[in-house]
């Protein structure tokens, strides 16, 4: 524990800006994955343990698409759309057969999918890591705010994730589709009785969740090594985000992802040997104070 270093950092604008940027990029990428997890749970009551696989495949598809198109934008779009399609297929062909099933059965199915696609990645892309490399447009020096370092690539990533958060928030609260999704989260039988095609609705929700995870994987690919099994580490943190934010709450996912990001960003200064532990301490503290999570509803 180095509280002096933390105090000194918090008193220095340059340190605050640098660590805040660090926290934002970690948090926003986590949000994109966790938003899908929480959305799927909110509507379908399915804990999608295979969500990390969407993140992994999104990165790999983007990596291949970049090689074909030489365009990072098209690569990101490919990763996102491919995972949206994969999400819908996953829901229709597998998950839909296990609605209402024991959570252990859901866990088993999802875990099987994780293992199968880890092996598929090994066969298709090889077992070793791949690095996409930074797109030429972002191979520029970082800019400085109050002496703090802000990488342009991360600024763009944070902007995209923030835009997604706004679109998702407004879409769920203002559009007819969003209202239907929220209604289905509360009472799916009633929504179905009122004539809404819940088959399409559920597949769409899975497609959105998968697409968001694919987007996160594709956006992160230029800086993170791509390797089989890479989805697992982000899955654990995205579940922490989902639990802290409140299962089913997209707003909660955003707030808690940013909270985890900041704990990582500043925790590494003040608690360098306990940063991971600190995240779990925060989770436990929040769950003691609010067992339903920050934005969750009491059941």
């Amino acid at each position, binding site marked *: 524990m180095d509280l002096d270093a933390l105090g000194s*950092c918090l008193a220095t604008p340059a*340190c605050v800006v*640098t*660590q805040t*940027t*660090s926290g934002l*990029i*970690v948090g926003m*990428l986590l949000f994109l994955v966790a938003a899908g997890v929480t959305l799927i749970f909110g509507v379908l009551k399915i804990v999608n343990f295979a969500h990390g696989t969407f993140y992994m495949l999104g990165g790999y598809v983007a990596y291949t698409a970049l090689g074909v198109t030489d365009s990072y934008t098209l690569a990101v779009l490919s990763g996102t759309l491919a995972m949206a399609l994969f999400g819908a297929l996953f829901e229709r062909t597998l998950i839909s057969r296990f609605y209402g099933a024991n959570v252990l059965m859901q866990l088993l199915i999802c875990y099987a999918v994780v293992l199968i696609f*880890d092996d598929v990645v*090994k066969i298709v892309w090889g*077992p*070793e*890591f*791949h*690095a*996409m*490399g*930074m797109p030429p447009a*972002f*191979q520029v*020096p*970082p800019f400085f705010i109050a002496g703090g*370092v802000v*990488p342009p*690539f*991360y600024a763009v990533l944070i902007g995209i994730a923030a835009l997604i958060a706004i679109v998702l928030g407004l879409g769920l609260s203002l559009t007819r589709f969003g209202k239907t999704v929220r209604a289905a989260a509360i009472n799916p039988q009633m929504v179905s009785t009122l004539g809404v095609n819940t088959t399409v609705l559920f597949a769409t929700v899975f497609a959105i969740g998968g697409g968001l995870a694919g987007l996160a994987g594709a956006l*992160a690919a*230029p*800086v*993170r*090594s791509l*390797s*089989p*099994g*890479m989805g697992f*580490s*982000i899955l654990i943190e995205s579940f922490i985000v989902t639990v802290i934010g409140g299962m089913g709450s997209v707003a909660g996912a955003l707030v808690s992802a940013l909270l985890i990001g900041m704990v*990582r*960003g500043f*925790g*590494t*200064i003040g608690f*360098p*040997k306990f*940063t*991971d532990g600190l995240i779990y301490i925060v989770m436990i503290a929040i769950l003691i104070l609010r067992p339903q999570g920050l934005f969750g509803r009491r059941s």
Partner: protein
Amino acid sequence: MSGLTTRRTVLAGSAASLLASPWVAKAEANTLRIGMQSILSGPIALLGTSSRNSLIIEQDRINTAGGFLGRPIEFVFRDSKGQPQEAARLTRELVNSTGCELLIDAEASSGSFAVQEVVRDLGVACIHTNSETSSLTADPKIRAPTAFRVARQGVHDAVAGSIHLADYANAKKLNKWATCSPDYAYGRDTTAQYLQFFKQFKPDIEIVGEGWPKLGQPDFTEVITKLIQAKPQALFTLLYAGDLSAFVNQGNVYALFSQMTVATPNVDYPVLAAIKNLPAGIQSATRYLETFPDTPANKEWGQAYLKRWNERPTNWSWQNSVAMHFYEEAIKKANSLDAKALAAALTGMKINSPFGADGTITMRDDHTMVGYAIGWGQTTPKEPFIVDVKAADWGKIIELETEWKKQQKYI
């Protein structure tokens, strides 16, 4: 007609199979299985795959030369995914269920310590080919009677690297250093060794920051920004393979390498190839370099590997190749596959090798090899990738290693 032909073919094939099957079974029974488990998937799969590639080349070479004691050899490869408990389980399975008579443990240190205990229990012959943590063989309590290490050792690299880095730091007036190494036995122990010797050669250095990312951690942002806050003049890192690649790519985003000099002993050819924007001038050890030692035998081996696998070898590749040469010589000497007989033959054995500093490598009494080529130079984006390589002084390495062992109460 075709149906008749098919029936005849099937009948003839069946008869041939019946007649041949005892011979096939006998040949299979005669085959000497060698178990190898390693990290064959994930961010540091390079460790396992480049080891496996090298062993396949060795398998072909040895079988062409008549095998071991007249028996063809066959490797059985298993993926531990870097999990120590899985490495230990696989070791038992390879010996007890798969019938492997010799073992190559190509795990990183995280797995090798677990494998060591299984080897001690089973009493099988084993060569660790990738674990660099010194205590695996240096600590007599951990050393196992039938287990040997054919891998570079942290303490050797620490002495060689510290001498080079002290000279470099003095020349460039670099006193403020930070470290960033993986958070497990190899990273912690070897960083401590480097710092101990570095301070011995340059007492005025100050460590202003430390980063300990997890093995296979996807995001290094918090570590990088912490290093930026610490404002070191130079950074020493033991990250490797996919982790090193991700760290460099994420560090480039923050222009980290324009703010500090970087030193690492862990740059290998495939990592150089995977890092898209490799900063020039990284102070680097030669883990494997075709041009160091600059001999025809070394170049020939590197080119043969490249031709076979369409990629360049790593440090782990040559270590696994040397391990098989040690097995080969020990089996000839002992005329046996018995683990105790092999252990006696291996102890003190010296073999000719293109990877030796003087053309030879010795298996010392403490079950670890010495005399392999160690050099330090600086990276360049094009071939030969590391230039201005200076060879380490093995006399100094042994002298300081002995001091270190005394401090640790190993001797």
